[in-house]
């Protein structure tokens, strides 16, 4: 029997819900029983490790992590707290600022490097030396360099997405088949037409991929940058810190449930932003939705 698209979607949804439920249940059991995954079966493994001279404690148990039910209870409490939502807002704002700047600068820059040999020769070596430096290594310099902490954090998130976007744009533009240029040229397309109708759409799939990867990196970077820099807590107290600072603050304050709330919040934020980006990507590249 042929499977319809709706049925397949339903199946995916069921699998997703089941896997999340199984994960939460295992976590809950493990956490409550204060044993590794809630099973004694691993006791022999501990014995084995002890025999090799390792401490029994070497295997962590999930019991050290707050149970999902406790986390949920904490969340239900925090959800009414304005400062929690403000943390969301701050992180989201920084991600969007950095990401948008990376798109606005990275796409034309990548296209220029792909199109112009001289520009490539001049810029690429510097780009390649700076690229391996992890964005987080920029945090101290960024704080010194930028007049406000806000700008410093946004700059670091910008770096997170920028390199990935540029590399993808260059790769995408260079991999466009020469036949497309030749065909367009034969049919009387001007240089501007070729750029607009061949280079741009030809690079679009790579731009989409680069943005999706870049978006993921910005979330990683923003959280760490907020933790290290104190998240601009000078500006708005704990509320101004963003989700990274929210987690760090919870850790310092000893509220373990709140740490997990912060972590899951970032997970959700990352998931939603990648999902939106994927949807937008599909929308702008309809020819890739074939069959």
């Amino acid at each position, binding site marked *: 029997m042929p499977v319809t698209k709706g049925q397949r979607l339903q199946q995916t949804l069921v699998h997703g819900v089941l896997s999340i439920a199984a994960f939460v249940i295992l976590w809950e059991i493990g956490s409550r029983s204060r044993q590794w995954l809630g099973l004694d079966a691993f006791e022999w493994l501990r014995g084995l490790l002890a025999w090799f001279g390792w401490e029994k404690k070497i295997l962590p148990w999930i019991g050290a992590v707050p149970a999902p039910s406790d986390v949920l209870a904490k969340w239900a409490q925090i959800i009414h707290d304005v400062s929690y939502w403000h943390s969301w807002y701050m992180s989201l704002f920084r991600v969007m600022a950095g990401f948008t700047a990376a798109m606005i600068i990275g796409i034309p820059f990548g296209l220029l490097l792909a199109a112009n040999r001289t520009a490539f020769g001049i810029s690429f070596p510097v780009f390649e030396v700076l690229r391996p430096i992890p964005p987080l290594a920029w945090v101290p310099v960024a704080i010194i360099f930028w007049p406000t902490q806000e700008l410093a954090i946004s700059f670091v998130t910008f770096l997170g997405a920028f390199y990935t976007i540029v590399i993808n744009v260059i790769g995408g533009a260079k991999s466009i088949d020469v*036949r*497309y240029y*030749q065909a367009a040229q*034969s*049919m*009387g397309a001007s240089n501007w037409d070729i750029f607009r*109708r061949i280079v741009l759409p030809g690079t679009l799939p790579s731009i989409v991929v680069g943005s999706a990867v870049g978006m993921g990196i910005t979330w990683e970077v923003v959280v760490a940058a907020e933790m290290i820099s104190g998240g601009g807590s000078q500006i708005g107290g704990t509320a101004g810190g963003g989700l990274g600072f929210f987690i760090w603050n919870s850790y310092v304050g000893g509220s373990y449930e709140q740490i997990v709330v912060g972590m899951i919040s970032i997970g959700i934020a990352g998931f939603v932003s990648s999902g939106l980006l994927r949807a937008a990507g599909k929308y702008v590249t309809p*020819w890739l939705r*074939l069959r």
Partner: protein
Amino acid sequence: MSGGSAQHATAMNAATRGSIRVEDVVKIYDPEGAAVMAVDHCTLDIAAGEICMIVGPSGCGKTTLLNAIAGFHEITSGSILLDGEVLCSTEKPKAEPGSDRIVVFQNGSLFPWKTNLENVAFGPLMQGRFGRKEAYDKAQHMMADAGLSGVEHNYPGEISSGMRRRVEIIRALMNDPKVLLLDEPYRALDSLTKSVMHEALLEIYYKNKVTIFFITHDLEEAIFLGHKVAIMTTRPCRPKKVLEVDIPHPRDYGVLTSRRFRELMEETNEAVHEEALKAFAAGEKEG
């Protein structure tokens, strides 16, 4: 060009434009000093509205010749004329690409991000020959004429490779070219699809009467389609034998079993085989 060079005798050939003269063309590739001669003093005349089939082993330099006519690559010396006007010569080694010479590429070059209709309408829009609506109307009409109704709003990736070739040929014809340059367009197709494509191409040709420069290494295809078959030597490339196919157009697949077709196959088969062996031996040496 001295006017009377190659007036073809085919009765139904009413075309008056698109004659090509390839005159003593040499192409030497010079990668890091190791000069490789791809085309060796090649001279070839193609009359207006003629289907000229270029047959030769893979890598013999046929595509080099096509690229020179299309204006994608330079020649080293000699000259190429279209309707008596110099496209390229020793003094001006690279022709300007133009809509009077449209290439249909071996692996296809329909823009994957444009629908079939947008692809077909592309040329006239770029040249500013038609307005938007006019171009799309004409494209729609041309596609319908070629039996391509119903796939206008699909992307090239959504239709079969045989269909894609037809769309691409229609896209080429929309430019009202003097010459169609086909570079092994049916190479990747299975033989059944190929036979359908051949008849479709002839049907399009009978309607449009455009000069066709068709590269292939399929001798049967060459004799079935061509007014003229130029069998090329293996690298460096030059015509070894030029055969005038005296089977009258319009042709259909019945021709394949006719006695004359078999005779022509026999007459040329040896020459082709000889060059294939040479190419093979050269390949062995290189390896």
